[in-house]
């Protein structure tokens, strides 16, 4: 079946620390992966993406790592800030553009 994500998730970090959010995906044919941030009462917001022919991509304060061997994706947030508190979803794109979301991880940043 199709599934993305881990069953958990709450991550609590201290402001200024680095955060690492993990995700497992199941479809080997997926060739495009995205991390989304969702704040309460809002729709998901694109953070960063990565194609399957890459293993790392960096953005502003965020880095996504892709390990296709074990079908694992991670999002690293540097110097986490209170404004980073939200639920983070990984998602994979299947052929034809179908986007599957995982269950999400709630990130809580303590001041």
């Amino acid at each position, binding site marked *: 079946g199709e599934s*993305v994500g881990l069953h958990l998730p709450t991550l609590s970090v201290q402001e200024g620390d680095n955060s690492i959010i993990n995700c497992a995906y199941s479809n080997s044919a997926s060739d495009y992966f*995205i991390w989304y941030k969702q704040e309460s009462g809002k*729709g998901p917001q*694109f953070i960063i993406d990565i194609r399957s022919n890459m293993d790392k991509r960096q953005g502003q304060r965020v880095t996504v790592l892709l390990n296709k061997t074990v079908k694992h994706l991670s999002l690293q947030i540097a110097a986490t800030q209170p404004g980073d508190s939200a639920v983070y979803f990984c*998602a994979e794109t299947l052929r*034809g*553009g179908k986007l599957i*979301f995982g269950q*999400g991880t709630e990130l809580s940043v303590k001041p």
Partner: protein
Amino acid sequence: EAGVAQSPRYKIIEKRQSVAFWCNPISGHATLYWYQQILGQGPKLLIQFQNNGVVDDSQLPKDRFSAERLKGVDSTLKIQPAKLEDSAVYLCASTGGRGRGPRVGAFFGQGTRLTVV
């Protein structure tokens, strides 16, 4: 640039009633998606349109859910009759990608929160 517009923001109905949601995507975006997000879960794709054609509706409960995008712009999602388990946030998203899924610049609306009582 205007974002994806959805209405209404909230809706409360009794079970067995019908309800409709409306979405206006980003101007020029050919691909439009409807997702259902149950509290505590990730969004689940219900239907994907490319212009006014359906690309994927494999997870749409067609006995009660229907969606259309007649002119390839606005879209409506309808539930008739509603069940208690339909309580969720219904999200609309659009992208200018050519059927490759939400990509950089993919935008989601704020969603419609449906409560079925």
